[in-house]
């Protein structure tokens, strides 16, 4: 059990170190998030009523688009640097690699999401102070689900020719229920309602998190075989 955790931690640490030195993914995603904001503003317009209605959806659209970009690369990086064989040859449970990658991707997505939330608050003039804890819970639960399936599918599509197409095509339909739950919950939270009022959505998200991570841990060995 301990070696599993240690192995997973090494993967996270490696990814963090690489990211800290190059900063390429985070920079690119930050810039992308900024661009999205401009596009959203142009698409939705200055009408504050309409904005308030579409805000939860736009926020999650932003998370998902950035997430697709970031997650899609997570195993491509390994291939580019000839680390792929090393990963395959690593002894023991390959699921530790999955957990490590998942943790790294989760961290990356949460950072980008935090930046997006701040930018949203700034550009659309929202007062997020009071709702921040509740919002954080919703975003946390939703992101775990996204990252769990995303990491698994990213490992698969990294080795396929048309990966930029296949990755979103596989991931997005699966994420539909999660997206539904998070948008509805975010909607309520942004209106200032307590988390209790969306308990069913939160339970769904928690269930999704458990299912996705479990399936990921159990099937990752099969994905990384060749």
């Amino acid at each position, binding site marked *: 059990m301990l070696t599993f955790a240690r192995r997973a931690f090494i993967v996270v640490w490696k990814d963090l170190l690489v990211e800290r030195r190059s900063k390429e993914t985070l920079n690119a995603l930050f810039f992308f998030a900024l661009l999205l904001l401009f596009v959203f503003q142009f698409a939705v317009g200055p009408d504050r009523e309409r904005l308030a209605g579409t805000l939860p959806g736009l926020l999650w659209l932003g998370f998902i688009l950035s997430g697709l970009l970031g997650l899609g690369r997570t195993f491509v990086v390994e291939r580019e640097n000839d680390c792929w064989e090393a990963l395959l040859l690593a002894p023991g449970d390959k699921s530790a690699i999955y957990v490590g990658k998942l943790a790294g991707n989760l961290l990356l997505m949460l950072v980008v999401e935090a930046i997006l939330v701040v930018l949203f608050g700034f550009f659309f003039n929202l007062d997020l102070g009071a709702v921040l804890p509740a919002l954080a819970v919703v975003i946390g639960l939703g992101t775990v689900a996204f990252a769990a399936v995303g990491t698994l599918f990213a490992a698969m599509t990294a*080795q396929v020719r048309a990966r930029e197409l296949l990755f979103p095509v*596989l991931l997005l339909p699966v994420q539909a*229920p*999660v997206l*539904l739950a998070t948008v509805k919950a975010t909607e309520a939270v942004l209106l200032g309602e307590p988390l209790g009022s969306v308990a069913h959505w939160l339970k*769904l998200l928690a269930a*999704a998190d458990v299912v996705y991570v479990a399936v990921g841990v159990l*099937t990752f060995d099969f994905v990384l*075989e060749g």
Partner: protein
Amino acid sequence: MIRPIGGVTLAALAAGLVMAFGVAPREATQGNVQRIMYLHVPSVWVAYLAFAVVLVASIAYLGRRSETADWVAHASAEVGVLFTGLTIATGSIWGKPTWGTWWTWDARLTSVSILFVMYLGYLLLRGMIEDRERGARYAAVVGIVAAFNIPLVHFSVYWWRTLHQPPSLMKPGPGTMPDVIVAALLVNFAAFSLLYVYFVAKRVRLLRREAEAAG
């Protein structure tokens, strides 16, 4: 072996048609257009059956690496997508005279559409991987994820549509329907299930022959 199944299937489908048009009564509020239900509902039930088989076959493949399990998963997903598409199309055709619109985001149509896109992605994945063994492995993983996702899709869409909103015209199941209507549904479900078995059997045989030819 496959031909007799085909024969029985044809007979069952004929029986289904008789039930749908001859035996089942004209519905009180919607009129005869409600008979589309005897096509629409059995289709979706067979689709779920197909995807359940995909799950079992996928797990079997990962456990035993049996080529047959892989073929069954592939064939079942293909036929499942076929029936899912039919469900959506017939649902839409039923909806136009009933609600006045071709599309509505009611619980069933929305869930089924998500399923359709999920398993279409599954088939796309299979089509894009040349290496047979890897394609089988990856498809199995996706098949498992997709199947476990189905209940999540159901709950999320159902809550989305029914909370703070009156439920849609199409009830999720037989519920309080008169016996003769339930009977017609079941006969058509049996007929479509036989058709499913027939199609999967033929498709698996085709996959086996293609594998043999490729050597």
